[in-house]
């Protein structure tokens, strides 16, 4: 397995020396938020869209990634003439707090102990902390109200938190393939991912940097397991079926019983090994925990509708038929919660066999939904 340390790259960012108060009570300072923008902010500053990335995404939304050399994670959705049209909208994408692509996270030096990174001592953060860090950037850009906040999966959680925490700042919200709270099943999957990292001998109690090591095997296994949950049985069958890479009974091929026999295995191993090159294990732990904490109803007797009472935000909830990680039943809970708050809600379930990852892939009905919802909302907001 690849053992190289992720390369250090200077990411465009804003630095907030005064930092911010976290939900856990800790004052994190300084706070750095790495971000990218696309398109042009209008003179009236009314055409800004924040796109929130998912667990392992980052701010490189619609351009070649400086580390992987691959296209941005949503470059098929965001760009000139695309559904999130950068000829029309000013798009901001920020690396989440706790991440490892330039925003303050566990890999950064801690202010109180010279020469040491935060590591496992990085304070626990929440989805709301991530959103508050993003708001620092939005404020600094002089944007009083966002036209829209859009995101899938954990990005969808941030969309909901934006709308709940700063209702007057969000004109339209598009939570995609997400849920009003992280389910027990999803917490369970995250826990398996974390235990895989802890079980790696290179973990060294989280102080792996002291040994010049990276818990690459644990992180790769975590990614492999998680990746299965992002797909669907149909998608795996369509892509790989039972196809074999090499004939396992071929004596000349000196292949062990547990070598890469099936194509799906080598695909997952590739997913795992390429992931550890760009991600930090402590970031993975911090962010998965933030997802686990997410529950819109937690402060409201379990009622996720209460944060939205009186909201004027227009919502568009999207789910996918084959998504079993954030199934339509959870999207429907969210839709009904927003109905209880008499919010303006659209709710679409897109027919797809691609599983949770469908929101990142080619789904023409989904593209039409994103484009149409934003156009309709722009008409109501009287912009562009």
């Amino acid at each position, binding site marked *: 397995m690849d053992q190289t340390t992720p390369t250090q790259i200077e990411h465009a960012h804003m630095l907030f020396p005064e930092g911010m108060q976290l939900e856990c009570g800790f004052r994190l300072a300084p706070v750095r938020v790495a971000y990218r923008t696309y398109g042009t902010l209008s003179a009236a500053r009314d055409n800004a869209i924040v796109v929130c990335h998912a667990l392992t995404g980052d701010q490189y939304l619609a351009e070649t990634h400086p580390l992987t050399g691959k296209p941005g994670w949503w470059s098929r959705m965001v760009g000139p003439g695309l559904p999130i049209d950068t000829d029309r909208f000013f798009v901001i994408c920020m690396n989440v707090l706790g991440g490892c692509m330039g925003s303050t996270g566990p890999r950064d030096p801690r202010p109180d102990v010279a020469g040491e990174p935060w590591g496992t001592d990085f304070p626990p953060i929440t989805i709301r902390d991530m959103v508050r860090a993003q708001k620092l950037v939005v404020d600094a850009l002089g944007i009083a109200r966002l036209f829209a906040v859009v995101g899938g999966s954990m990005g969808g959680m941030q969309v909901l938190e934006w709308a709940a925490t700063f209702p007057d700042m969000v004109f339209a919200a598009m939570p995609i393939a997400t849920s009003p709270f992280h389910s027990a099943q999803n917490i369970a999957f995250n826990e398996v991912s974390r235990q895989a990292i802890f079980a790696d001998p290179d973990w060294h109690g989280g102080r792996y940097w002291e040994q010049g090591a990276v818990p690459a095997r644990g992180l790769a296994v975590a990614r492999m397991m998680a990746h299965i949950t992002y797909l669907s049985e149909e998608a795996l069958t369509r892509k790989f079926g039972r196809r074999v890479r090499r004939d396992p009974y071929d004596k000349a091929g000196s292949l062990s019983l547990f070598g890469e026999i099936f194509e799906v295995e080598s695909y997952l191993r590739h997913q795992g090994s390429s992931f550890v090159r760009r991600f930090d294990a402590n970031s993975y732990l911090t962010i998965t925990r933030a997802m686990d904490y997410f529950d819109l109803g937690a402060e409201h007797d379990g009622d996720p509708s209460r944060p939205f009472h009186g909201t004027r935000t227009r919502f568009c909830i999207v789910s996918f038929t084959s998504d079993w990680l954030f199934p339509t039943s959870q999207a429907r809970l969210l839709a009904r919660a927003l109905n209880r708050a008499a919010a303006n809600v659209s*709710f679409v379930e*897109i027919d797809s066999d691609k599983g949770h990852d469908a929101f990142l892939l080619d789904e023409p009905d989904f593209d039409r939904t994103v484009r*149409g919802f934003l156009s309709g909302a722009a008409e109501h907001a009287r912009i562009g």
Partner: protein
Amino acid sequence: MRLDQRLIADMIRPGTRVLDIGSGDGALLDYLFRTRGCDARGIEIDMREVTRSVAHGLPVMHGDADHDLAHYPDEAFDYVVLQRTLQAVERPREVLRQMLRIGRHAIVSFPNFGHWQLRLKLLTSGRMPMTAVWHTPWYQTPNIHPCTILDFLMLCREEGYVVEQWMAVDEDGERAPWRRSIRLANLFGEQALFLLRRRGH
């Protein structure tokens, strides 16, 4: 937009909050927003129609009259519209109750089972009547709760709803001339259209 939808739109005051249950292609929503300045939202059971509506920028959610109205707060809307669907829901009386709980007014249209052609066909053939309006055989029809205009009026009386306006229209939505006599409307009207409110409002 169908002519009967135009009649429905004429019942709705500009600038009000409207929920259209069974919004279909969204024609009424679009009309209410663009020409009346209404905050018009839809619920639709057919996912293709939902996707098409949202792709046109209309606020529509997937759902149906029987299961999704209970989640709205009281008087969330000024008007709740149910077009040509009452006869196909599981519990029509409960749906009406919900409509008049979440809305100050309910606008309901339904095909009239009291039409003379249906009466005559049942009388002469002894079989379930089939007409242009009632065109699916009994074993396939989604219309599990057909009623006549008089039946509907009786239900409104029992439930304490005030009929603010009613009209009988033909299938194309042209307003029919029998406006004075409800008995004649029940005999000659193909579709009925009612504007209701709760007593005491």
